[in-house]
């Protein structure tokens, strides 16, 4: 499995998984109410987070001179970005 490589996605999915996000937050924090359009903003936040994470991961991979993204790249990148996204 480690050798298996997943090719990069070409087309970005356009719809936001609104129901999924709502359920996620509801499950974690059942006492928290969400306004009607909030899940779209959460989706935006996710996209931005992933964007930053991907950039960082790519940089890490290039630094290690590898063409494929590996676990360690992601972990290293996540350390930085999660700290940034702490709020």
């Amino acid at each position: 499995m480690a050798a298996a490589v997943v090719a990069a996605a070409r087309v970005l999915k356009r719809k936001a998984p609104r129901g999924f996000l709502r359920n996620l937050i509801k499950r974690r924090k059942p006492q928290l109410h969400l306004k009607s359009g909030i899940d779209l903003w959460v989706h935006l936040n996710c996209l931005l987070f992933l964007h930053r994470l991907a950039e960082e991961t790519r940089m890490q991979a290039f630094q290690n001179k590898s063409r494929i993204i590996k676990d360690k790249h992601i972990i290293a990148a996540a350390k930085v970005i999660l700290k940034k996204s702490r709020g």
Partner: protein
Amino acid sequence: MAFLSENEGTTRTLLHHVLETQPLSSPVSSNTRQSKRSLSTSMGHPRRNLRDPPSRTLLSKQTKTVPAQPKDTGADGQLFVEHYDFLEEGTPRILLKKILQTASEASVLVPSLMNSQEPEPVELQEESKWNSLELQLPELEPSVTVAPGLLMHNRKKRCLRVSEFEQEVDQGLAVASDLTERQPASANKSSVTRSFNLTLATVRPPESIERPGLARRPPNRKAIDVEAFEQRLKDIPLTPLPGPRKQTKSGTKSPSQNTPLSTSSLSAGTRSRPWTGTSSQNSCFSARSLPARSSISREARAKSGVAHQVEEEEERLMDEEARESEEDTEILQSTVVSELSMKTPEFLRAKRYHSLLQPTSPVPPNTNTTLLPSKLTQAKRAPKRRAPGPRQPRDPDKVGLNNYCKVFSFYAKTPMEKSASETLMKCLNQYFRTLCDDLETFAHHAGRKTVLLADLELLMRRQGLVTDDISLYVLVERYLPLEYRRLLIPCAASGNAVFPAG
């Protein structure tokens, strides 16, 4: 003379003559006046003679100082000319020239629109019309200033009027007679004639007549009938309760429906027969009512011991009742239902009976033909009945998070290892955890229990995504598809409303 008689009716010739008789724009030049006079004299004495009365009347009207005196001497006419010359500075000339340009040579008749003003004797009807026309034009002139803009405006009015005359000529003199009744007010004339023309136009029939398809149609109720039909299919083995539902429209979702169930089961049995209406049906229903009653009684028994299967049936029944109460308002076509019930009587009935009689069987009845309630129950069943697989939060998460994994790979543009995607899922989980915590903290800090947009904006600001340079909405535009912009970015709409409501 013959030539003149031909041209008598034309506006052009009259205007031409008027133009010639009129002095030039420069008021001071007496020489020019004299030259004009000579010109006019040279034009043709007989012509002049004929033209004198109209021209003089014209001039008299212009000056307004001298009363209209037809058939003055030539000298008087010239005096009038001088008078006129001093008063007006050439605007009538230009206007008349324009009229000459616009007026077509074919127009013979001019409606006596302006006829009412003159009490002069009219030799020919046409001539009087010409008079009126001529008199009309100079009358307009004093009202019009020398400003070129207004000249243009005047010109347009003139053009309109002439064209309108032509139209009226086409329609006949009857129209002209109508027009004579109208006020010869200078400014209103064009609008009046215009309105007259407009009234002549046929009124379009209302759109509904033209396009019957757009007429309002009675609301369609078929959707609910389908539901009813499905309901009926479901109802058959369990003898449910359209009757009692109608009687007691209690809360549908409450679990305390078992008592109405039991009470109504008896009435349902009796009511099912008249409801079906066919003899064959009666036998079926009576047969079904027995297992139904037994099932209901069983359920009443099982209520005490919270059996797995019974809960399912109860839920199903409750769902059915919910559906029934919805349908109560509808008049159900029993024949349709009866036909369909005929299709599913034997095997389904056997299956349902089987399932009811065997409360321990974990398999839900294959009531795939009856749909909505059974599906719901199956969905509820799924998490409970499945063998202990992955943890619950993981299960639904994986589908959703895969979504975001694809987004990540799209942004990364380089291929990833599969193990890396597992790590990515962990990262995302961590991220969502912190996100929820942050949102709760912010909402609580604001004294709220609801997460609002302000909370999210604060979060993004603290994350460094939103700065003074980059606003929230810019990010929306960059990252989200077009359809979301309308939902997320408030736009001002008409009526002092902002959408979405801020």
